[in-house]
């Protein structure tokens, strides 16, 4: 757990005092990733660096796991905090092994233990120990170097990690891969992490919580979903971007908005039955046909059902798309757009149909929070704009 208590930094410059961080109060619960987000010069990096005293706080306190760190010796404090920077900062004069084991050595581990730890770390970041440990940083690609940077920070198993735009200098494709790897590692490691980013998409992907900064002040601190659904003011809103409702698609699972009202036909039904069901349930285009195990096998088009006589088993077409309950709405929306559908059948892990997801349900779920807020504190003019 990291708790910041009225943390403040004032820089004395030639133009007078500049408040880089103004009474920051926040708490990151144990095992969560908190993203500090904001435009450059907003105080997010200053706030992060005050935690390990790279920047000396003017006032305020930092608590780690409930203990006040103010009285702690700076080196002891830092050795117990993992630190990853954007420029990576691997020591070019040392081998990969020496880089990874540097903090364990500072902490006085014995040789056998830190050597074993280096191999363990390499396995964790999925790099072959025998191939890499004796090499030098300059012989590695940028992505590999930052993996080593993360391994170095984690080597002494600190409870807390600070990461200053760690993946900012890596190309987009590798960045996504490293982000995924890191999230997977975090599921096992359960570190408390503060992470500076200026990339809203990265914040939503990586963060359990997001803290938005502006001009040295903490403007909003909430979960990514709350942030996107209910931005506190116009600044946060504009920083999140006009497509913030779309960004929420990533965060909501199909499971949350699926309805079990779905009408289906079986192959032995007549097309008349199908037509009747289409009208009863108000489907515009087609109805789903399932087999005896309730697995989707095809669709009956409305035009076919209306004009033809016979059995469903002779007149069905392939199912355009189905979504899984654990898919996110982004995938569901993409499939709907691609296949020009207003609804999609949903299947569970066994592949049996368990409901449907409609465009209407998606838009009403995403819009619910906006409408609720417009009701209470929105000015009419702003409401119209939206």
């Amino acid at each position: 757990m990291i708790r910041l208590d009225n943390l403040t930094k004032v820089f004395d410059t030639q133009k007078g005092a500049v408040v880089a961080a103004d009474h920051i109060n926040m708490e990151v619960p144990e095992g969560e990733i908190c993203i500090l987000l904001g435009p450059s010069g907003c105080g997010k990096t200053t706030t992060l660096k005050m935690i390990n005293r790279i920047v000396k706080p003017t006032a305020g306190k930092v608590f780690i796991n409930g203990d006040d760190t103010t009285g702690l010796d700076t080196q002891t404090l830092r050795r117990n905090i993992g630190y990853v920077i954007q420029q990576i900062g691997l020591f070019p004069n040392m081998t990969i092994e020496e880089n990874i084991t540097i903090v364990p050595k500072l902490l006085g581990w014995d040789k056998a233990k830190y050597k074993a730890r280096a191999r363990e770390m390499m396995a964790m970041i999925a790099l072959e120990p025998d191939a890499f440990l004796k090499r030098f940083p300059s012989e590695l690609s940028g992505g590999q170097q930052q993996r080593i940077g993360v391994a170095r920070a984690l080597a002494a198993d600190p409870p807390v990690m600070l990461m200053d735009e760690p993946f900012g200098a890596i190309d987009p494709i590798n960045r996504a891969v490293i982000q995924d790897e890191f999230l997977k590692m975090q599921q096992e490691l359960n570190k408390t992490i503060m992470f500076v980013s200026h990339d809203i998409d990265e914040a939503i992907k990586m963060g359990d919580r997001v803290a938005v900064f502006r001009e040295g002040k903490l403007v909003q601190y909430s979960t990514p979903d709350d942030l996107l659904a209910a931005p506190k003011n116009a600044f946060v809103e504009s920083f999140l971007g006009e497509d913030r409702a779309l960004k929420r698609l990533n965060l909501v699972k199909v499971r949350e908005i699926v309805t079990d009202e779905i009408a289906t036909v079986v192959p032995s039904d007549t097309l008349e039955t199908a037509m009747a069901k289409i009208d009863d349930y108000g489907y515009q285009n087609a109805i789903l046909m399932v087999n005896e195990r309730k697995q989707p096998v095809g669709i009956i088009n409305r035009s076919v059902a209306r004009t033809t006589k016979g059995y469903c088993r002779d007149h069905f077409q392939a199912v355009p798309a189905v979504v899984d309950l654990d898919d996110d709405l982004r995938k569901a929306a993409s499939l709907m757009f691609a296949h020009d559908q207003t609804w999609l059948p949903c299947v569970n892990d066994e592949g049996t149909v368990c409901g449907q997801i409609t465009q209407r349900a998606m838009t009403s779920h995403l819009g619910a929070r906006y409408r609720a807020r417009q009701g209470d504190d929105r000015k009419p003019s702003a409401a119209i704009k939206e």
Partner: protein
Amino acid sequence: MPIRSIKGALKVLVLVAIFFAGVWSQSSGIIDEFVWYLPDVKYLMVQHIWLTVMSGSLAILVAIPLGIVLSRPKMANVAESLMQVLNVGTTIPTLAVLALSMSFLGIGTVPAVFGLFVATLLPITRNTYTGLKGVNPALMEAAAGIGMSPMQRLFKVELPNALYVIFAGMRTALTINVGTVPLAFLIGAGGLGELIFTGIDLYDPVMMLSGAIPTALLAIVVDALIALVAFLLVPRGVNPSRA
């Protein structure tokens, strides 16, 4: 092909020239004259090397700590102006430095070593200082951030990463030092300058050359020696010659 054949022809030409030079020097008796100076050369060369080793090692012992101290953040205010003073110091001709040191310390080995020490000090200090200042700030932040003490940062991160530049400074300084030692003869400290300057005064080119050629060879050897030490001592990851 034409370039190759031109090169081949040049090689043959050079070999022929060397051969005739050898024939000429033997027939003119010049080699015997050189051989006649050999005991002198041996004796003076020991003096010469001694002067270089004394003044050079003194300079290294003083210059590197001085460069380290100047590069500390606490010294940032005075360091730049002090480096400027040192820079101005480098522009004073070594002969003038020797003359000055003679007027304070008299003649002999001591003022010579002192004068050479001053002349050698400056390039090493400057390279140590710029080398340390040039270490990537991201490395320094990483080193601080993972909890290294200032001393650990200096010895594990700063110095290894600045070492190549520091060695370049030593190489320049000591090579120049070897080439400057002949001037020490002028204030009575001996060395191969004795043959060079006496040779000039007596208009005896063989005598002059038997001082000048060993001096030049010595400079080349010193340069190669320091390059070798740098090659072995600078860590592989930051050593351009071992990349």
